[in-house]
């Protein structure tokens, strides 16, 4: 039911991305287009929530919608943090997530009732925490990739503001991933009597924390090392988010 609205939202994200390439385009027009896209996106998510009778973050399709929505919100409400020449990249990622969600097989999109274990208030803290973290990590990755490209083109270039922004995003990501981990443990204890079961998803979530801890414990935190670590973290998180879901079975198989 929400598909036509998502397609409309996707179109507006595309227009916003195109506007990024016009240097003389008005900020007001960009924000207006983004506002329409976000409102349509939100309406689609609300329709989905009503159809499934719970907030839309219990399967891959719904979490793709959520992640792209969080990225869009961040782009609009903290737009000063993002140089104009990077906005198109963020929009490209939003577009990719939404498009992937739209073309997923129907079996991934079929509304399914909540499993008994998911019927808990902790779901509304644990899952969004992780996706706030993933959102920040994606933004951190964009800065990391940009820094590496700049270094490759001009090794002497001073990109302090980009480095500071990357640091901020990684701190946000680390914080929210830890919130997700702790609240997940509390929820698991309430549901199953065991706060840690070495489930593949849990184990990989811990691996992500360790890799990110490296970021804060580099003896020589050069820009290149930090940027490479961010990329490694992102790859690990992608494996946690997608690889673990499809390769391993476990307590989080429904995700």
């Amino acid at each position, binding site marked *: 039911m929400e598909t036509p609205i998502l397609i409309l939202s996707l179109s507006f994200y595309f227009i916003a991305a195109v506007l990024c390439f016009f240097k003389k385009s008005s900020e007001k027009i960009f924000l207006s287009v983004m506002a329409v896209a976000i409102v349509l996106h939100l309406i689609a998510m609300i329709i989905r929530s009503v159809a499934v009778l719970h907030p839309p973050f219990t399967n891959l399709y719904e979490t793709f919608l959520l992640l792209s929505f969080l990225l869009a919100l961040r782009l609009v409400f903290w737009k000063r943090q993002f140089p104009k020449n990077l906005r198109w990249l963020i929009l490209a990622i939003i577009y990719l997530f939404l498009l992937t969600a739209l073309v997923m097989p129907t079996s991934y999109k079929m509304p399914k*009732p909540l499993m*008994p274990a998911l019927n808990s208030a902790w779901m509304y803290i644990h899952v969004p925490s992780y996706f706030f973290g993933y959102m920040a990590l994606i933004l951190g990755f964009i800065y990391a990739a940009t820094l590496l490209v700049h270094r490759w083109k001009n090794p002497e270039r001073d990109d302090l503001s980009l480095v500071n922004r990357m640091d901020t995003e990684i701190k946000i990501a680390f914080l929210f991933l*830890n919130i997700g981990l702790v609240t997940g*443990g509390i929820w698991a204890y309430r549901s199953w*009597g*065991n706060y840690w079961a070495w489930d*593949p998803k849990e184990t990989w979530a811990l691996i992500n924390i360790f890799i990110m801890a*490296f970021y804060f*414990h580099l*003896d020589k935190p050069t820009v290149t090392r930090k940027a490479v670590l961010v990329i490694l973290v992102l790859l690990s998180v992608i494996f946690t988010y997608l690889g673990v879901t499809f390769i391993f079975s476990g307590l989080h198989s429904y995700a």
Partner: protein
Amino acid sequence: MSGNRTKLNLIVLRIFQIIALVLILLLAASTFFPQQSELSSGYSSPNLIVRWMSLDRFYNSGLNGILWLFLTVLLVLAVIFNIVRTTTQKALHLLLALIFGVVFLNKNLEVRFFLPIAEGKEVLLSSFVDRLPEKDDATVRLERFEIPTHAGTSAPKNYISHLVINQIEPVDLAVNRPVSVGKFHLYQNSYDRVFYFRVEINDKSFETAFGDTFNVDGMPVSVVAFDDHTEKFIMSIGDEEFRPPLDQPFPAGGKTVRIIPQGIRFISVIEVVQPVGVKWLSVLGLLYIFSLVLAFRQRPVERRG
């Protein structure tokens, strides 16, 4: 002196990096191997490297324990030797060390077991726990197991065990709604279904399920399985095997046997835990998050060397 301090800082940092890297690699690799606890206790991977690295039982291995112990020690050393500078960062590292310590105590001291109870049956907690004091013992009876479904679907909404504790206190145990029985916490873990039969042997009647053993005149009797091809049960009386048909009298071992299907009954699998330190873990976990927020809000202190 400052040179030695710088060297010490670097050594501790390097050790952390090495331990973290080793843990990352071993944890990642172990997710690709089914852990020994998931398989029979006698199972061991045929791969020599996997066995040597304990990758097929990593989570329960001494190697895992030692790596976490080293991490805990490092966290404390980082504070003692002033490698972390700010008060907030010191609190953060000490909190983490405390969390790891409480986890260690919890995993080694807590009592945990699974309690499978069939509908209509009663069990004693002391039959699962050695040397349980009488005052902590309790009877748990499963009156009925219920699977309510979402409206208009057959998808389960919850799994509910309607229990009676100590023969007087009715309680409902469901997923996300644990109950306490004295020092123990009960959690709805899973369930199973079994086919029940009434076995009539001469003038005696017994209720049983596949694999259960009962005694008749001092001889063990068991209904093992049902052969779909011949449509006959496989039954053992003492050392002999018989194949009686469904719901018909059958001569077996000098007796007349009749097996009558009774239907399906649920077995609720309840996880019983006597926790140690778990409430502290929740508090420490939330404090850890709070101190992370504080640490990130501070201006970074420039690390020397």
